[in-house]
Every structure is written in structure tokens, then in C-alpha cells.
């Protein structure tokens, strides 16, 4: 039982870390960045490269973050910014980008699966059993990430500025906010977070060119369900992630893999505002 509980909260944490970047991009730029899965994959391969270079495995994190930030900045300037007036097209363009990323990685690294060295090995004893230490660290990461992001948004002038741009960009501009810069920074950070998430999850799974796809779909549904609220995202990750774990354990893993997506679809039908504050 304790193991099940830990599985649920660590799965929720992983989902939160993966989806957080997508959420802030959705909030500020009003688009779903379909390239998020691509950035995730890039982060994973950054970790692979770090392993192959025999560096300290923890180095994968800053490398991935940096790669994500830089590539995200380039993408924002070349692809997203010109499509500012056409958000649905921006979404499509990022989707095209994800295809491009997958092909490039396949050409560079081949189609096969690879494994990455985990920075932390082993398990700790809990309630008469042992549990992966790395997964518990993910729980800590998610909590810290969430706290930092909420703190910035609600408590700082920067956060107020971001929220203003989220709500009404033109009005923000007339009040002196450089919204182009806000969008640029947000997209870069969102991409960086995606890559970071990719590097964080690879020790738990494996690395292959298509690894981003299932995560993107899940993150996507979670973001739609939570509106533009980080707290809503946390709640969605817990509830839906919990459902995924429960269904995988007690029913079948195939159904479990689909559960987030299917449950979110039904949830959004019943309550289009999702988990956002009513």
C-alpha cells in the first residue's frame, strides 16, 4: 500500500516536471508547444551524450537545460514569433518541428534505444520494502519547482507582469510591458524545462527518438485540464497520475498508458474549465 502511494506521488511528480514548461508557454503565448516532446527528447539525448563522454551524470541536467534554453530561443525567434497573429498555425508549426527533431535525432543517433547512467543508484528502505531513491528525488524536484514557479508568479513584479501578458497582451503593452520579451523569455524557459525534464526522466526509462511522443500527449492533456493554473496542474497530475498508476497495477499496463488521455478527455467534456479555480 505504501508502495502504491509512493508510486502515485512520484509519478505525479514526474508528470508535473514534464508538463510545467508546457503550461507556462500555454499561459503566456496561448499556444500548445507541440515541439515540447521534441525538446524533451533533446534533453534525453543530452543526457546520453553526457554519459558517452563519461562526465558526471549530474552534468546532464545543466547541459540539457542550456540546450533547451538556446534552442527554444531560436525556435521562438524563427518560428513562433512570426506566427504571433495565428496561434493555431503556431501550434501546427511546432508540431512540424517535432517531426523535424525526431528525424534529425534518428539520422544522428540511429533508431535504437539507449540507456543513460543514473546519477543516483539504489533504493532506500520504506515500510518494510525498498523504493527507488531516484524516484523520491523526483518528488523533491517537483515540489521545489512548483514552489519556485508559484512564488515568482504570485509574489513578484515579474510574475505580475507575466500574468498581465497572459490575460491581455495589448493592454500590457500600453502599460509599458515589453510583451515580446516576456513571450521570448517564457518560451525559452518552457523549452529549457522540457529538456531538463527529459534529462531527469531518462535514468528511469530509456532513450529513443520517439520517447517524447507519449509524454507530450499526456502533458498536453494535463495542461488542458488544469487551465493556466500551476496548482491546477499539480492537482491534475495527482489525480490523473494516480489513476494511471492504479489502473496499470490493478488492470493492465496498456489501459494504464491510455488512462490519463482518456480520463482527461471525459473530464474536459464535463467541466471544460478543468481544475482551474472556478
Amino acid at each position, binding site marked *: 500500500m505504501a508502495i502504491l502511494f509512493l508510486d502515485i506521488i512520484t509519478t505525479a511528480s514526474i508528470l508535473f516536471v514534464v508538463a510545467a514548461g508546457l503550461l507556462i508557454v500555454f499561459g503566456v503565448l496561448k499556444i500548445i508547444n507541440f515541439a515540447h516532446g521534441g525538446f524533451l527528447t533533446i534533453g534525453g539525448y543530452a543526457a546520453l551524450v553526457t554519459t558517452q563522454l563519461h562526465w558526471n551524470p549530474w552534468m546532464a541536467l545543466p547541459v540539457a537545460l542550456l540546450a533547451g534554453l538556446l534552442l527554444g530561443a531560436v525556435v521562438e525567434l524563427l518560428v513562433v514569433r512570426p506566427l504571433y497573429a495565428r496561434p493555431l498555425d503556431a501550434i501546427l508549426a511546432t508540431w512540424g518541428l517535432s517531426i523535424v527533431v525526431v528525424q534529425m535525432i534518428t539520422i544522428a543517433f540511429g533508431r535504437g534505444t539507449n540507456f543513460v547512467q543514473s546519477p543516483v543508484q539504489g533504493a532506500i528502505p520504506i515500510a518494510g520494502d525498498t523504493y527507488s531513491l531516484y524516484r523520491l528525488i523526483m518528488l523533491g524536484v517537483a515540489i521545489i519547482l512548483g514552489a519556485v514557479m508559484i512564488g515568482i508568479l504570485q509574489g513578484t513584479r515579474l510574475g*505580475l507582469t507575466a500574468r*498581465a501578458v497572459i490575460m*491581455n497582451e495589448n493592454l500590457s503593452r500600453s*502599460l*509599458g510591458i515589453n510583451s515580446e520579451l516576456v513571450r521570448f523569455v517564457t518560451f525559452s524557459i518552457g523549452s529549457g524545462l522540457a529538456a531538463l525534464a527529459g534529462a531527469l526522466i531518462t535514468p528511469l526509462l530509456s532513450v529513443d527518438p520517439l520517447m517524447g511522443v507519449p509524454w507530450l500527449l499526456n502533458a498536453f492533456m494535463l495542461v488542458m485540464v488544469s487551465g493556466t493554473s500551476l496548482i491546477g496542474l499539480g492537482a491534475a497530475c495527482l489525480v490523473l497520475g494516480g489513476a494511471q498508476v492504479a489502473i496499470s497495477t490493478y488492470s493492465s499496463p496498456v489501459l494504464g498508458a491510455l488512462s490519463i488521455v482518456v480520463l482527461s478527455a471525459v473530464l474536459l467534456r464535463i467541466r471544460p474549465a478543468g481544475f482551474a479555480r472556478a
Partner: protein
Amino acid sequence: MSEALTVDTLTSGYGEAMVLRDVTLRVMAGEVLAVLGKNGMGKTTLLKTIMGFLPAYRGQITIFSKPTIGEPPHHLAGRAVAYSPQEQAIFQELTVEENLKLGLGRRTRFAPELKRVAAFFPFLAERRRQLAGTLSGGEQKMLIMARALIARPKLMLVDEITEGLQPSIILRLADVLRREKSANGTAILLIEQNISFALSVADRYAVLSRGEVVDAGDARQPGADASIAEHLSV
């Protein structure tokens, strides 16, 4: 008196449609210029072009002696320009306080400025934590005005602030604008369709018809309202 805003033979519009044609006007510091006109005649287009939301095809706009065409809108706030648009003028989901803070520069302390504008509109201080979207229409307009005033602007661009308001609030706003002009030397460009309100506040007026200035003069002259009314009716 120095010139706050100069618009010189400005021609602008949307896509191919030229809405403004060769518009020239001037607002001096400490002066209120009322720009009147029927709908569709270019008043909001004028403000949007001044703010930089619309490109200008010809002409020049100068604010405090610096040309502004080509500059992005967010630069103007830094030049002490306060814009109060006609629609979507506040953040519905932010509190009254947060809306006002956004009107203020980053470095200024909020509390004393809040006190200053709350003197005009007391409800702002009492309901600072209320979500702006739950205020009534008249209160929202007063919030818009307060936000414009809180940054101590040197130039105010006000777009039909009295639309849909009841007479008592209109009187209050007129009072506030007159005081702002005389106490702080603020230049105000007032877009309006409400002739009596406009003339109670303005020093000079201009009438915009089909994108051109067709009449202009001293707002305090006896025949001003009749002259304007002629242009605003059929």
C-alpha cells in the same frame, strides 16, 4: 507652454482602408483637446496610431519633442503617456490593487500613490482586493481613470470614458480631469461623443469626420456646441 503631443498630416488605417487622412492637431501641456466625431470616423484609430498599435502611412507623431512613429507601444508608458482604451481596458481577473500597480512604474512605492488616487475614488481603497471584473461598469471606468492618473502622466489619451455611464459619474470624471489639468499641467487628448461632457472639460476641440479634421476651435466659445452638433448629426 510646451507641446505635449503633435500629430502632423497623419494618414493611417487598416490594411488598404485609409481611415485617417492628413490629420493635424496639437495638444499643449496643461491643456485638454477634445476630439469629437461619429463612430467610424477615425477617433479610436487616431489613438491606436499614436500609441503605435497601428502603422502610419504618412505623417509624423511627436510626443514631448521626440518622434514616435515606429516605436513599439510599450515605450510610451516610459514617456509618461497614459492610455485609457475604450474596450478591454482593465484586467478582469486581477485585483483592483494589481491593476493599479501595473499602471505604476516598477520603482515607485504603491501605498502613497494609492492614497492619492483614492482621494478621487474612495471605493478603490476599500475594495483593493476585489477582482476588477466584478466591479460595476461605472466603477471599472473609474478604475481606468485612476490607473491612468496613478503614474502621474504628462500626457493622457482617453477614449470615450463616459460611454454607458450614468450622469452622476460623468460629472465626477469631468471634475477629476479638470483638476488634473490645472493642478499638474497634464496634457489630455479626450476622445468623445458626449458633447456636453467634452466641452465642460476641454480648452479646445476638433471634430473628426471621415478621417479628416473638419472643424476646430475654442471649446469655451458660445457657439462651440452648436457648431459641433451640426457635424455630429446627419
